């Protein structure tokens, strides 16, 4: 699956549009990571546990989006966007969406 956030896949030509595809995950923070993050919150700096958590979750959202595109018979997703929202206290939704296309 070719994925891009541009209007088209660079170097390829779009031959068919399959429509919007999306994938999302809602992740809650892990208690162990949360305690560490609480300490880091006092001294400041990067909250590595959260960085990894969000990047894994975003990866999962992209995977789900790819499966959906695959099921449609597409081989690429263009114009991918991301959205993050705090749906509940201590939980975040990671959302990825784009347009499934066939390229040559």
């Amino acid at each position, binding site marked *: 699956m070719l994925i891009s956030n541009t209007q088209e896949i660079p170097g390829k030509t779009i031959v068919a549009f399959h429509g919007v595809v999306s994938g999302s995950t809602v992740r809650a923070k892990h208690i162990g990571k949360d305690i560490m993050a609480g300490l880091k919150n006092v001294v400041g700096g*990067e909250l590595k546990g959260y960085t990894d958590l969000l990047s894994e979750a975003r990866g999962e959202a992209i995977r789900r989006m790819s499966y959906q595109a695959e099921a449609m018979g597409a081989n690429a997703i263009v114009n991918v966007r991301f959205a993050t929202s705090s749906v509940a206290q*201590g939980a975040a939704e990671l959302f990825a969406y784009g347009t499934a296309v066939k390229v040559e």
Partner: protein
Amino acid sequence: MELLPYAITPALLLGAWISGTLIERWHLSSLSRLESGSRDILAVTIEDIPPDWRVESSDLVIGNVVISQDYFKRVAASLKGIVGGNIRVYEPLLERARREALIRMKEAARERGHDTIINVRIETSRLASSRPDGKGTAGVEILAFGTAVSLSGGRPRLGVTP
């Protein structure tokens, strides 16, 4: 001994101020080192590929970082929030996070063998607190992403790579 409870907050503030300042200084020096290391990767916000570029392959690349402000600066910012104006203590924090996210995005491109990233976008989002009262913040996430490309015949003269 009766005064001990009153001493905790100033001690915490002082500790946070010292550690926050040290972490910030360390981060800034690491950033300038990493930035000079990833200078060969060109990142641009243009959407369309110039017609004379011959693209061989492309990948979506992402860099993210979650960063939090130290307690002292949070208190300072909330005091500043009363009178309004620029909250300067937050500016370096967000700047550091954006630079870090951009470096990570560039390194992700390098790992996949690309040297140019187009249509770079940077997003900022606040992570909600895990505290039951909903106060405070769990940190801010900066997300940088773009489409990394490999060009056959090398990159045309667009980038300045000193």
